[in-house]
Each structure stands twice: as C-alpha cells, then as structure tokens.
C-alpha cells in the first residue's frame, strides 16, 4: 500500500514540475516583476450620443447619453429634474421620466416623482467606450 502511494506521489510531483517548467505559472499580478510599477489602465472617455443608446432589454432603464458631472442629487434637490420632469421635458426636449416613476410603494399613483425613483443613478448610468472583456455576440431580448 505504502509503496503504491509513494509511487503515485512521486509521479504527480514530477509531472507537475515538468509542466511548470514549460508554462510559466502566473499569479493574478501578471508577469510584472515585484519591483516594477504596476500597469495603469487606459483612460476611457464617456460616450455622449445624440438620441441616446440602443437598449438591450425592453424595460431597461435608458442609459445617459450626456455629461452628468455638473449634476447633483441630494436630499434637497435633484438637478436631473430640471430637464426630465413633467413640467420641463417639453421645453428642454428631453425624455420624460416613465410612468413607473410616479408610483409609490403602496401602488398609488402620485402626481410628482416618487421617492422610490428619486435617485436616478441607481438605475441609469452613463456609458464609456470600453470593449467587451470577452469577445461575444450577445443580442438582447428587445
């Protein structure tokens, strides 16, 4: 019994060592040496597109096609509503917030933005020109 075990262990070790000699084992750090600077990623710019982005799903929250760095959502106020509210959307030619945004948690329809939907950024995001991490031919259910 002992002989078989030692034999198998020896076999496994030798295979492992020979393999590692051929393929360099890499940690998550990559092939950078410990004393060199880490690789910085490429800066990507936000995509600003007229008429918005194509959605992948039917009721997907639309993606933000304009700059938002000067906008602020705080307890006191929501600057997104300066263009997207019921009152302003026509004048500013911006998409109106959807009907679902007026319903409170008890299902009542309100005549102003529900507090459930107050923080726009929880669902709506700006887009950046990053390529797919893994090449794929995904098509959404539209």
């Amino acid at each position, binding site marked *: 019994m002992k002989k078989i075990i030692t034999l198998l262990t020896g076999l496994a070790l030798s295979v492992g060592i020979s393999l590692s000699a051929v393929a360099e084992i890499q940690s998550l750090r990559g092939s950078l040496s410990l004393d060199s600077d880490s690789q910085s990623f490429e800066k990507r710019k936000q995509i600003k597109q*007229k008429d918005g982005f194509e959605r992948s799903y039917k009721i997907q929250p639309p993606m933000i096609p304009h700059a938002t760095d000067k906008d602020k959502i705080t307890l*006191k106020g929501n*600057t997104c509503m300066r263009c997207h509210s019921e009152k302003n959307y*026509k*004048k500013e030619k911006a998409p109106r917030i959807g009907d679902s945004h007026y319903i409170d948690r008890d299902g009542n329809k309100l005549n102003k933005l529900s507090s459930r939907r107050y923080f726009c950024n929880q669902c709506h995001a700006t887009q950046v020109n990053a390529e797919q991490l893994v090449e794929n031919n995904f098509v959404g259910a539209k």
Partner: protein
Amino acid sequence: MGKLTKWLSSTLVVGMVLGVVLWGGFNWSLELTNTEEFCISCHEMESTVYQELQETVHWSNRTGVRATCPDCHVPKEWTHKVYRKVMATKELYHKMIGTIDTPEKFEDYRLTMAMSEWTRMKKTDSRECRNCHHFESMNLDKQDERSAERHDPHVWEVLDGKEPSLTCIDCHKGIAHSLPEGWEEAVENDPILSAGLEAVAEEESSE
C-alpha cells in the same frame, strides 16, 4: 523763491506723497477684503458655501482656470465695488447678531440669500460671470450639443445688438453652491427672476 512759494511747494509735495500713501493704503486694505481668505474667515461661510463650492466646476476643472468668492460676488469696476462694500455693512451687522451662525439657521436663510444674489445678478445681466466668460467669444462647436443648442439663440441676440432675453444666472443657478429647497417655486413667483423664463416656456410649448 519767496518764503510763501517755498512753503506752498513743500506742502504740495508732502501732500501729494501723503495722498498717494493714504489712497494706496485705502485701496490696499479694500482689496484685502476681496480675497478668499477674508471671506472664509467667517465660519458661517467657511463651513457652508465654501464646502459646497469645492464640489463644483468653478473649484476644479480640466484647465484649472477657476473662480473664488470675490470673482463672483464682488464687482470689479471701482464704483460698483465701493457700492457693494458699503452695502456689506449689512453683513457685518448680521454677523454681529448671529443671523446665520448655526447650520440650521443658515439653511433657513439659504433661500433668501440665494434669491438676493440671483436678483442682483439678473439686474446686472450677470456682470460678474462676464468678468471671465465672454459670451460672444464662446465657441459653440466646442460645446456639448445640449449646451450649444441653448446658448445659440442668445449669442445671436448679442451679436444683433438686441436686448438679451435671458442672462447667465437664469439657467445656471446652483453652479457654485447648493440649490436651496423650494427654489423653483420661489423663482417662478418672483417677478424679476421669472422674467424671460416664462417667455421661453411659452415659445417652446407652442412650437
């Protein structure tokens, strides 16, 4: 030279030198009150609006061209500047009686202060904005679609020499400090601040 003329000329020279020193001293001390350090020496300003400013584009941006307190709140022209300084005694009085010396008091007063500043800017056609932003020189091609569309009609107004229907502060409220609660209603109900804005609303809805 007679004794009188000698005395007169020396008095004149002394007077001129003294005048330069005193007038220069006056202006120098006046300018000291036009600095960011002076403004934030009051905790009412330093802990509230100054903190809010640091989140905005006028504090830090791509080019590093920025504005501090006096650039927007103190006129550059001497006459307007001195007038503002005289009116500032009101602020000294309120500092003394502590009208806004706690965060709660400040928040209660925020709308009033904002409306007063907005009215001042509206009345002067955003004079302080124009200290740095020369509207006619704005290159609309370099702006985002959203901004260019809105600036365009007003650039043409200025170039055609017409009376501007809107001024910077009409749309750019909250550019430097937090917007007070209930500001939209207050602006609508104010005759001075809503001038020009309802005209835009009517025009757009009839298109």
